[in-house]
């Protein structure tokens, strides 16, 4: 096949596949080979969860995200809560205090008004909880069959009130890695509802705003080097991304990673590796070893971070490599997720 490096993702797919939005290798190829070169600029090239820039005397963070979750309501949340929390969390991961959000609704003709009302009410509550205001928006209705009930896009602005350069390149050898909570809940809560994949479970999404614990860490004087929320692609993909950007090796300790029994059980059943399952309410913190104890104490004071643990550290080693000391004491490489995680045959 003729190669057009400026247009075609390296995997040579002629169409966009679901995996191109899956947070794994294919999505990274799409970013690297199409979006980033097309729009290249200094701010975009920071490659963080949000853009960080100065405007007058203020440092601001700016980010956007679209929400296409199906079903619209799931245990522990809904598309509205997700749309507020997700964008708030992207700002929080820049070390910013979230201030203002926009919301764009793309609604499919025929959606019950009651559904829309519930989603909006859920957004109102999540915004109030986080202290952000929804200050502008847009509504479009598409023909029946052309939208999956509803899609929401939110963009957000936050202000950065400190001088720490919170980014992968600030990570240093010797840093500790903290994880704010147990992993895998959101991905499995949504999966459990999907048609044809029904299994009984009480797993509730971890969907939660993370600005409060991050701001508390900053106010507590914790020297945060890098933050990452562990959405699509899960803990593994987030860590591989940071190891790659920082050019350092991250070593994780499987035994220390909080994982609920029911999540572990569902993963065993489906043949999933919980390291790759999506979360919507947990994040990792890279920080100097001396701050670990205080940071854990601050985190555990927040409802969403009660399970916070130190899960690993950063070494010189091989740049871009993430290793995991398994529960049986051996070590293996943690790779980035390639495409969607698919349940195995047996």
């Amino acid at each position, binding site marked *: 096949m003729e190669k057009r490096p400026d247009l075609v993702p390296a995997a040579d797919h002629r169409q966009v596949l*679901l995996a191109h939005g899956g947070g794994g290798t294919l999505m990274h*190829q799409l970013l690297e080979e199409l979006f980033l070169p097309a729009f290249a600029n200094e701010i975009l090239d920071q490659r963080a969860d949000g853009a960080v820039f100065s405007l007058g005397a203020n440092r601001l963070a700016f980010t956007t995200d679209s929400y296409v979750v199906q079903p619209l309501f799931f245990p522990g949340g809904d598309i509205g809560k997700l749309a507020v929390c997700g964008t708030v969390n992207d700002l929080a991961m820049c070390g910013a205090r979230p201030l203002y959000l926009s919301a764009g609704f793309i609604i499919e003709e025929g959606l019950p008004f009651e559904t829309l009302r519930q989603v909006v009410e859920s957004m109102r509550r999540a915004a109030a909880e986080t202290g952000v205001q929804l200050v502008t928006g847009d509504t479009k209705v598409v023909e029946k069959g052309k939208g999956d009930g509803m899609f929401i896009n939110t963009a957000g602005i936050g202000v950065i009130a400190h001088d720490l350069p919170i980014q992968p390149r600030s990570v240093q050898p010797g840093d500790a890695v903290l994880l704010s909570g147990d992993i895998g809940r959101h991905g499995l809560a949504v999966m459990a509802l999907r048609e*044809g994949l029904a299994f009984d479970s009480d797993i509730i999404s971890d969907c939660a705003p993370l600005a409060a614990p991050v701001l508390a860490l900053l106010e507590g004087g914790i020297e945060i080097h890098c933050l990452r929320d562990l959405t699509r692609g899960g803990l593994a993909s987030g860590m591989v991304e940071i190891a790659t950007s920082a050019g350092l090796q991250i070593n994780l300790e499987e035994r220390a990673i909080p994982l609920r029994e029911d999540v572990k059980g569902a993963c065993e059943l489906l043949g999933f590796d919980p390291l790759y399952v999506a979360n919507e309410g947990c994040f990792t913190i890279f920080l100097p070893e001396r701050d670990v104890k205080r940071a854990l104490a601050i985190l555990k004071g927040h409802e969403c971070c009660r399970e916070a643990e130190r899960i690993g550290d950063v070494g010189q080693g091989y740049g871009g490599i993430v290793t995991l000391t398994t529960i049986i*004491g051996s070590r*293996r490489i943690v790779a980035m997720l*390639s495409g969607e995680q698919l349940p195995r*045959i*047996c």
Partner: protein
Amino acid sequence: MKYVDEYRDARVVQRLARDLAQACTRPWKIMEVCGGQTHAIVKFGITELLPAGIELIHGPGCPVCVTPLAMIDKAAIIAARPEVIFCSFGDMLRVPGSAGDLLTIKANGGDVRMVYSPLDAVNIARANPDREVVFFAVGFETTAPANAMAVYQASRLGLGNFSLLVAQVMVPPALKALLVSPERRIQGLLAAGHVCTVMGYREYEPLARDCHVPIVVTGFEPVDIMQGIYLCVRQLEEGRAEVENQYTRSVRREGNPAARKLMGDVFTVTTQQWRGIGEIPASGLRLRDAYAAYDAERRFGLGAYRAEESSLCRSGLVLQGAIRPVECACFGNGCTPEKPLGAPMVSSEGACAAYYLYRRG
């Protein structure tokens, strides 16, 4: 978690590693038959714990990997039809056929659905009487009883819109083919615990005797695998060639009679093509004539379809344990999980993907 944690106990694993190191005086080549075992071996870094002389050879027990290319193509042809809802286990969706995988068919508008059980596909057929619902019945003896149950239920319900695309394979004939091969390198075998849960292990007894190879029926957790290797090495060191059952919490000598009966009622033994290996007599299952109406190949007129496999991909040799994945020139170089040449790079159970994901560094 009960029944999992105790089989991942680091102290037990380390103790077995010490016992193994003591028992092992010579190099031995042992094949773990099942892809699930391969996956566990790399995921838990088990090779790190073995004495230097023990080489694990990854066997042909990955259903995704051995499903012939022609069958993947047939799946794609059926799935692209507008009246069809094509249901499959998740990991078949990314297996490359001659013209792309099932996810590509889905991207083009095909109604391809991932299900966790063939019985879910039966329910989809009930809920969609105006559509043709096809389930891709892939796998070893492990999946055969549930697939048989789906056909049995569909026939009891009188569902005229449900069928199976059958690519059902059986382990012992494939093992025999490997063991009698003149290029045989394998000295001991870890048989697949799940397969034996259904089938028992009587049929392995003549194989162990005639081919003089120790066979240990082994589970899938680190403690199981370490103990399976230990039992196998002990037999090799003592010059024995017997069938031993490590996976006693799940496997009986006679297997699961109810499951075997249902399988026998619905399926009959047939010659089967294995991807990368070729045709093996009496190594597959097809629907009995009484259930021919549920055969998707027949329903969609695809019985005569043929396909050529890639000449670059050496997965056949990998599946036979003749080479390790990294010895293939395409490994990581033109063949990756994003763009696999052959099926062992697709499935998380496949030897190539397992190597690629966990052992590159």
